[in-house]
């Protein structure tokens, strides 16, 4: 089960860091520093991580490269749509 713990730990760590960064931003906002408005959808990578976590655990647990591959393709499609929606406007 160590690899499940490891993968989960990385994902949990990322989520914790995101929350820490969000909290530190609130502190900077209180000090008058400007920062962009953060929406729930900006946290998409966190939701994707959670989905990936389940996918990877299931696929590795069943030793199924097919589940692993198809899961990755679905996630990639989601991420491509997401990045296209967040296309950087050139200043």
């Amino acid at each position, binding site marked *: 089960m160590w690899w499940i713990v490891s993968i989960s730990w990385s994902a949990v760590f*990322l989520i914790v860091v995101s929350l820490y*960064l969000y909290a530190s931003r609130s502190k900077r906002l209180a000090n008058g520093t400007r*920062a962009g408005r953060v929406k729930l959808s*900006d946290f998409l990578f966190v939701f994707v991580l959670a989905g990936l976590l389940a996918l990877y655990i299931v696929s590795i647990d069943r030793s199924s490269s097919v589940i692993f591959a198809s899961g990755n393709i679905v996630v990639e499609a989601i991420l491509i749509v997401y990045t296209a929606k967040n296309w950087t406007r050139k200043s």
Partner: protein
Amino acid sequence: MENRQQTASSRKDYWSVPPKEVYEDLKTSDRGLAEQEAKQRLNIYGYNELPTHAFSRLRILLRQFRNPLFFILLVSAIVAGFFEVRQSVAIIAMIALSVVLGYFNEYKAEKIIEDLRQTVSLKAVVIRDGKPSEIDSRLLIPGDLISVYVGDIVPSDMRIVESKDLEVNEAVLTGESFPVEKTSQVLQIQNPIPQQLTNYMFMATVVVHGTARGVVVATGRHTEFGSISRSLVRTRPQTEFQRGVRRYGNMLITLALALVVGIFVLNALLGHALIESLLFSLAVAVGLVPELMPAIVTISLSQAARNMAKKRVVVKRQVSIEDLGNMDILCTDKTGTLTSGKIALKDYWSLSDSPDQRILQYSLLCNSAVVGTDKITGNPMDVAIWEYAIQKGIQDGVRSHVVVDEIPFDYQRRMMSAVVRNGSESLLITKGAPESVLSRCQNIEMVEGNEPIEPVREKIDSKLASQSGAGYRTLAVAYRTVGSKSSYSIEDESNLRLLGFLTFTDPPKKDAREALDKLKELGVDVKILTGDNELVATKICEELGIPVYRVLRGSELTQMTSPEIRAAVEEATIFARITPEQKLDIIKALKTNKHVVGFMGDGVNDAPALFEADVGLSVDSAVDVSKDTADIVLLDKDLLVLANGIEEGRKVFGNVTKYILMGTSSNFGNMFSAAAASLYLPFLPMLPMQILFMNLLYDVSNMTLPTDNIDVEYTELPKRWDIDFVRKFTLFFGPFSSLYDFLTYGIMLFIFGASPALFHSGWFVESFWTEVLVIFVIRTRRVPFITSRPGKWLTVLTLSAVAFGTILPFTFLGNFLGFTPLPTEFWILLILMVATYLLLVDAGKVFFYKICKF
């Protein structure tokens, strides 16, 4: 006489005693010193020269090692030498490369400045044993009697004993553009500042009018000029970039030490072999060190220095290029930097609405300038009149007039006159200080005809006062018809008719406005630090379009406490009538307020500020001490190149930042997962030699990072070192890499049932692919990353490195390193996994850059 000198303004008050007492005190006379005595005194006082920043190859070389990363790298090279000699050699080669490149670039820059300095050798006319002779100014000693003439650079501090119509430009010392009148008259003042000593001449100032004889009272480092140079003989403060590198180095050392100790202790506690655990923990620490950092920095800086050299900008200290890019406040001297430092005729005017062109024509006729074929010499104001007339093409209008007599300028009358004949009519034209000329005028010429001057006198005085308040100098022009006679005298300068006035200014440089606008676009605030008065500085700001939020005078600054100065420097745009020490205080206060501060100046009074600033900028025409102190010297007085330089600096900083972010996030992620896996795997997740080889390959793929393209939006605003940002970036993006490493462990063990060799191979390839390819995502803030085009060479080298890493397990070298070929199914999963990873990091950027501004 004591074997010790002091600066002129603080030593015995020679300004308050007549020349005779000066002679007595300095044991000299109006015949000067005896040659023999002069030789003895030279032994006592030494040469009349300033300690300059000696041109030393060794010093330039040693300067290249002032970098904490060298220490880390050296330790890494030694540690790496235990497992992989090639890695050790590669690290040492990188250190050598950056040292050699840095040395040659800085040597070249220092050599240019040294050559410039050696082209100037000053001579002085000294009277010894009653006879004048020209000697090298280095041989002057206190008590020497010297003569100075128009155009001379004053060779030492001297008390004037005789003078005739003497005017000296002291801009180099005080920042004041207009010449100052000097006489030998005794002054009764206590604790004067140099500007008040009108019977002194100071080293490096320039005689612009008249002649004088004076006794040398201070030489070399004991002059006013020298006292400022002396303040520069101390350790140069670290620039913002150097402080940033140090903080970054400290962060890495802490991280590496924590990992080494942590991994070793945990492995030991879990019962793994002690030596193996130690070697593995050391290899992980070496993997964290960004070996390429000095090379990336040096190559980037050298490239930027070369680009700037093409625009005739000499970069003396390469490290300053990054600070030039990050600079958010530019403090600048006024005279000679924003202004031309040369008096120019602004316009001519009369009380009538339309100015009479005769004002200009008559002032050309009543003019002491000598007009040569390629140069006009003489009194600066007369020269300015000619230059203006030539520029406007109206000098030919005076050809029909013949100058038949002149009454020269003198300081009692403060005006000059010329008698000119045009056909049968003779005119006496007078030009001079308004108050002198006006007192000799009875009428004023208006459009309606001649009118008495008294009714409009108040109006004239008010206009003159406003001109003077705005920092302009004004001359009046008047005339009258005279009868023909053989010679004319000052008695003829009466009953004049006022024609109009000439207004002079030290105009802004042609490109100054454009350059300042560009600086504003680049997010650089400009502040003016000048020894001149606030009205002149405000006027220049108006002309250059610099918004003035607050004006602070030197006298106000002296009353302020440090916190008050720190608050005031944020608000004020102009600092007027300030001393060199106050310039220094202002720079320090701005630096304390976390600004990256540049200072541009050309006078000796600017040298301490040039020294203290993060970036010291000077110009070719500056005094040696300023050029010595500056980090960057503009060979052409083109301020626009400054803006180009800032963009170059930002590109360098951008590429160095990319490397740091890559190294500390991706590397950290990989090393962290290796460390974690070592705790529960029955074998090491990667052999020490494999870790170091991957590190070497990764470094090679990054070699072309200095040539990478930078997004336009990145260079729009100044950036600064922010270790907190680097830390957050590492914490956030590092785990992405770790997550995929753990995933690879799972796939290798549970899908492929991998042996240690297959496990090592699979993880090596995955780790290398993610580590190298993520540069395309991290190098830009744009989402998706494909909208930012990477540099050609970076793309070629990165993809080549990936290709090499891919085929490695199938080669003999791979076999030697302990790798084994991987199954086809692995490659399919790897491609999908890496694609997901890159997309995930790109999606993470949306969140991260909204949260963390940099």
